[in-house]
């Protein structure tokens, strides 16, 4: 019969010699192997203190972006909700009133914007669909909460801090790898 792979190895059916049947050499060999592991470097990353470097394309929790003057970019067009395969995004639009020009960039804005993090699959399609660069996936991850309701993130959870009043938090929320 032809062998399926070239990696096949013939098994030796030779009866074990006396030394092999004693098992003591092999036991000592095994013990030496485990002992050598004492001096090996541990690959563990001690999580809350140390964090792993993310790749530039890491997709974590969502952030609703602001422009450089601190105005919300989202216009509640709904393209992200349409693109979302998990149907995790809902929103309600509202019209910008007189005197709110410093809060919202366009004439229309999202009065309510919710993402259900339990439904979200972090695929990043909302990010791709957004014509206004208003939503992107950050480097924050592993959300934890006591209730299911807590996982429905509203605007106050998603919105990035104002780059003018709180530049440090803004930079932190943007993440290290983000350059736009």
């Amino acid at each position, binding site marked *: 019969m032809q062998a399926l792979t070239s990696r096949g190895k013939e098994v030796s059916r030779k009866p074990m010699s006396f030394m092999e049947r004693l098992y003591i050499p092999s*036991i000592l060999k095994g*013990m030496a192997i*485990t*002992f050598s*592991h*004492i001096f*090996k470097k*541990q690959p*563990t990353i001690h999580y809350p203190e140390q964090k792993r470097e993310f790749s530039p394309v890491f997709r974590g929790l969502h952030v609703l972006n602001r422009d450089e003057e601190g105005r919300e970019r989202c216009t509640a067009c709904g393209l992200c909700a349409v693109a979302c395969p998990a149907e995790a995004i809902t929103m309600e639009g509202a019209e910008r009133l007189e005197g709110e020009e410093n809060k919202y960039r366009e004439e229309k804005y999202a009065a309510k914007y919710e993402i259900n993090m339990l439904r979200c699959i972090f695929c990043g399609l909302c990010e791709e669909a957004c014509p206004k660069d208003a939503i992107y996936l950050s480097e924050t991850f592993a959300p934890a909460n006591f209730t299911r309701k807590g996982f429905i993130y509203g605007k106050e959870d998603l919105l990035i801090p104002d780059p003018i009043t709180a530049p440090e938090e803004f930079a932190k929320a943007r993440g290290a790898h983000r350059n736009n």
Partner: protein
Amino acid sequence: MTLLAFDWILMVEKLILIAIIVFASLGIALYTTFAERKVAAILQDRPGPNRAGPFGLLQPFADGLKLIMKEEIIPNSSNKALFILGPGLAMTAALMTCSVIPWSSHVELFDRKIDLQIADINIGILYIFGVVSLGVYGIMIGGWASNNKFSLMAALRGASQAISYELAMGLSLIAVLMISGSLSLKTIVDEQMAAGSLWNIAYQPLGFVIFFICALAECNRTPFDLPEAENELNFGYHQEYSSMKLGFYLFSEYINMIMSSAVMACLFFGGYDIPFLNEATLSPNFAAILGLLALLTKIVIFIFVFMWIRWTIPRFRYDQLMNVGWKKLIPLALFNMLLTGALILWKQG
């Protein structure tokens, strides 16, 4: 009136000694569980428990607290009295061994010479064997009272294993006793300490190997942990146990480990003897402390070897276990015994 004349101070002294030794054994056992997890982790390239306290040093207390807080379940179909007796017996038998182990020479306090040994009985080794055999009852009673097939199977295995290996253990010990000519552990240690004499391991290498293997089997440690074989017996004889009763079983295993390490150190490695040092030149109290540290070091090394073996060697099959015990170790131990006897006679001329 001489019969009633009672040395009350001796009584108090021994009570204090018992309290110290029992609590120290428990404390060491507590940290042996921690050491087991740490050693396992390090041998597997993991950091091990490191969250509770600095370096995870409070972990054993967290484990103990967890066990105590757990719900205590006594199965309806179990024999309740025996079910409770089982872990208690296992623990008592494990702790009783420490009474004849000479922890160190003697200290001089308040003009009294205090031996650091609870009881220097002249049948010390026999006493240890007797008590260790009692430990099997803990397993048997626990397994039987649970009224569970797996527990009973595991208990049977544990009992047959303990009986088989005690034989080889006793036979390997006879050779040591022929050399020392005494059953008292203190005398055995003192003979090894005497100037010009070597540790018994030099005369009895084969005897030590047999004794060590049997000690592994007696403590139900891998590769002889058949009573606890998870994959074939679910969890072994303590399957139905929960809360601190389970803790007692697990704990008694660690105490057994410490005690068998101590016995091995005393029988083969000179007990509290420090190599290349004549203890008589030091002040007795200082020598006693150094001796205690030496014995503890030997115990720690043995415990490490126990753990090292556990995380290296897989478990024996049941027939292999019996094969090794009856067909290999007992003939070897008999041979060792005859050889030692012949050599002693030849030396005497």
